[in-house]
């Protein structure tokens, strides 16, 4: 539904005529993020300052119009989709970076691209640790909203562990700083709750992050395994040896084939699975740790171990990993990617369930994921031009998530619940659990204008296929 002309005029008075998009053709560009489902916004507002964000939200609040903050639109759970219409609040013009090399922190605006921050910080010998695979495109604002992860979060932690404070705009248009410079702020940890709140509690306008010193020495190893199962055991064995690598990633046979065809990085295409292992620190520690890791991998049927000998070789190995999902386009044009997390020791079980589900639905499934964290990324590959296939794809995805939950896992490790998984929240949380979250939502956004239709189940909208198996999957097991 188009916004009233008077509302569009109000928005234009705040951000300028050119910065409000309301023509049907242009709006379609903002229909999607990187998930399956889309919805065209009624208007897109390109905000350039905190004051503009606050002004736009005040207008939205006055007229009860939904507002969905949006960064690069690389999200995988539908977080940036305007499912109830309204305003897509585009923040990619907000991209200032201020690095404080003495305090080893940076204040960035939400439209700053993740990798850009590390590139700027590098001139001070610093880097920003969370590194989603989409880091060349995704924004820090989106990362903070979704509490994003990445391969190196195994050792370094996810976004919430690196955000020191934020400037946010609440649903009434008021602007606040939450946490900030010093450790152990006084009062409730609002910042901790707002990180990962998926745009449903606030719009983020500045983020203060911790930067780390670039390690002196990095060692990266690629190892082949006969099967996913043997590779999974090797992952557990490394951790059980008391070693937490910086990153510990797995790719299955199908992924390796696509990646090698695309990047020619020397990935062993005959392998059932490969592990990409990285340790960092000083030369002594990387040498010792890598020697220990090699031994564990070989004891667990690892073969064709290959350590990157130059930074260029390391880059290429990582390009293959981070570009893996793009490379899968060689097999099918579309993918549907889930993000469940299981206790690490359950990896073999959940991966065999994922394989069976793919076979049952006759859909190719490629696995490329953060094995060290137990964070799966099964990519269901399909062709959207085949109209019949979409319900099959969604059904398979749902069954895979169900398998994750039944093994004591979580619905999402780093992509967020958003639109696509909101119907499954009752699988992991009781009505009382969800009520506690709803209380927080009502405190921040009593009228429900901020990113409505996300996180919480909306029974009117999405049919859960596994109807007979709804209800808490882990009931009474938690405690």
């Amino acid at each position: 539904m188009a916004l009233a002309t008077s509302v569009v005029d109000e928005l234009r008075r705040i951000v300028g005529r050119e910065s409000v998009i309301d023509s049907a053709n242009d709006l379609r560009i903002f229909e999607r993020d990187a998930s399956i489902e889309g919805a065209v916004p009624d208007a897109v507002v390109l905000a350039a300052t905190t004051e503009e964000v606050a002004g736009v939200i005040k207008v939205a609040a006055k007229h009860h119009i939904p507002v969905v903050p949006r960064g690069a639109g690389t999200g995988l759970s539908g977080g940036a989709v305007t499912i109830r219409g309204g305003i897509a609040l585009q923040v990619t013009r907000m991209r200032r970076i201020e690095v404080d090399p003495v305090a080893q922190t940076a204040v960035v605006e939400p439209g700053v691209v993740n990798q850009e921050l590390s590139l700027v910080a590098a001139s001070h010998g610093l880097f920003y640790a969370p590194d989603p695979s989409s880091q060349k495109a995704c924004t820090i604002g989106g990362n903070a909203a979704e509490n994003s992860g990445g391969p190196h979060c195994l050792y370094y932690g996810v976004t919430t562990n690196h955000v020191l404070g934020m400037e946010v705009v609440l649903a009434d248009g008021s602007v606040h700083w939450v946490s900030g410079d010093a450790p152990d702020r006084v009062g409730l940890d609002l910042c901790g709750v707002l990180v990962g709140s998926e745009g449903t509690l606030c719009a983020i306008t500045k983020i203060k992050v911790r930067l780390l010193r670039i390690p002196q020495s990095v060692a990266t190893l690629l190892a082949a395994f006969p099967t996913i199962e043997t590779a999974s055991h090797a992952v557990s064995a490394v951790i059980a040896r008391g070693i937490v690598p910086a990153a510990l990633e797995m790719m299955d046979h199908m992924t390796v084939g696509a990646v090698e065809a695309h990047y020619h990085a020397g990935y062993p295409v005959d392998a059932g699975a490969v592990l990409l292992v990285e340790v960092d620190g000083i030369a002594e520690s990387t040498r010792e740790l890598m020697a220990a890791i090699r031994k564990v991998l070989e004891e667990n049927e690892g073969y064709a171990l290959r350590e990157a000998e130059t930074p260029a070789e390391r880059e290429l190995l990582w390009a293959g990993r981070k570009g893996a999902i793009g490379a899968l386009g060689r097999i099918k044009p579309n993918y549907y990617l889930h993000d469940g997390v299981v206790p690490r020791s359950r990896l073999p079980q959940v991966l065999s369930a994922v394989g069976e589900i793919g076979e049952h639905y006759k859909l190719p499934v490629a696995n490329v994921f953060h094995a060290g964290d137990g964070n799966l990324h099964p990519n269901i590959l399909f062709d959207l031009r085949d109209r019949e296939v979409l319900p099959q794809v969604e059904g398979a995805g749902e069954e895979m998530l169900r398998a994750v939950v039944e093994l004591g896992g979580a619905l999402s490790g780093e992509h967020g619940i958003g639109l696509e998984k909101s119907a499954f929240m009752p699988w992991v949380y009781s009505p009382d659990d969800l009520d506690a979250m709803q209380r927080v939502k009502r405190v921040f956004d009593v009228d429900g204008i901020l990113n409505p239709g996300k996180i919480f189940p909306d029974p009117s909208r999405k049919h859960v296929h596994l109807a007979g198996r709804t209800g808490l999957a882990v009931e009474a097991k938690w405690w």
Partner: protein
Amino acid sequence: MVTAAVVEKPSTAEELARRLHQAAESGSAVVPVGGGKAAGMGGPPLRCDVELHTTGLDRVLEHSQADMVVSVEAGITLETLQAELGKAGQFLPLDPFNSPGHTIGGLLATGWTGPLRQRFGSARDFLIGIRVALPDGHLATAGGRVVKNVSGYDLMKLHFGAMGSLGVIVAASFKVFPRPLHDITVETRNDSMEAAWDASARALELPLLPAALELFSDGRVLARFFGSPDAVNRMVSELGWKQAEASAWGEHSRRAPESWARIAVPRNELRGVLSGLPAGAQWWASPGIGIAHWMFDGDSEKVRSARVAAEAAHGSLVLMGARPDVTRELGAWGTPPTTLELMRRIKHAFDPEGILNPGRFVV
């Protein structure tokens, strides 16, 4: 005026939730109690009708060694939990002061940390799931038992450091860590504070950061390195400090002053703020974090001016323990945050009658 309280010590989470609900229904003020090790922290309770002890909830619910995840009830002591984890060569990197005897629930509610925060962060960083009894009698869970999770709001953060003002923590899950391959403690004693600050700065510039680094007001600096043996040994030889007993850390964690305050400022401001303390002030600090603990004498005027300095540096000075008259005069927490109104609304959403720990926290 605080009157003698009824003491309740439930042995299950459900029973605790029921007791809490009963208290709420009758408008009784509830003070949750764990090990009682942080009893001096916060404002004096305005009322205390029921002391709700968590020490009856002291089980390890599940320790999945291969996954390096542990779930415990809130009343278990840190030492009991460490002993359990130690059997598997694992540990929780928490080493709070005024040990032993802290309960896990108490540590989460107060947010206390120790020297190992330098390497591992605070419990905020490795708390992965929580279960809380609410005044309406419900038990609400957030997070889970996996190390990475963005399913719904991170309510772990809301209860961490909230002094039991929103609910009573009954259980928690943590990511745990493998014992370090190598663990060495070194120290240096300096004639001047100038030299001591420089020594600690040098240790914090090493390519392999210390796992813990503590600076003391008598010029001593204590550092601990975790990692592979060659790497740790190289750091130790680069520093050139003399090796110390690992037991130094246990002694350090047993510090339990009667009157003390926590100063938390951006780490590059810590030196300036501490040098402004009265001559002869006794304190210890984590310069890599920006936190110091100051054992002050009874003089509230000096604490007041130290708080002014800490707050001017965008930080805080919080009383960890003090004579009641000093706490009443100065307030436990200092200038309230600008988002106080929002915090009050969250408090109201969970504890509308205000029966949880009234007067103790900022909300």
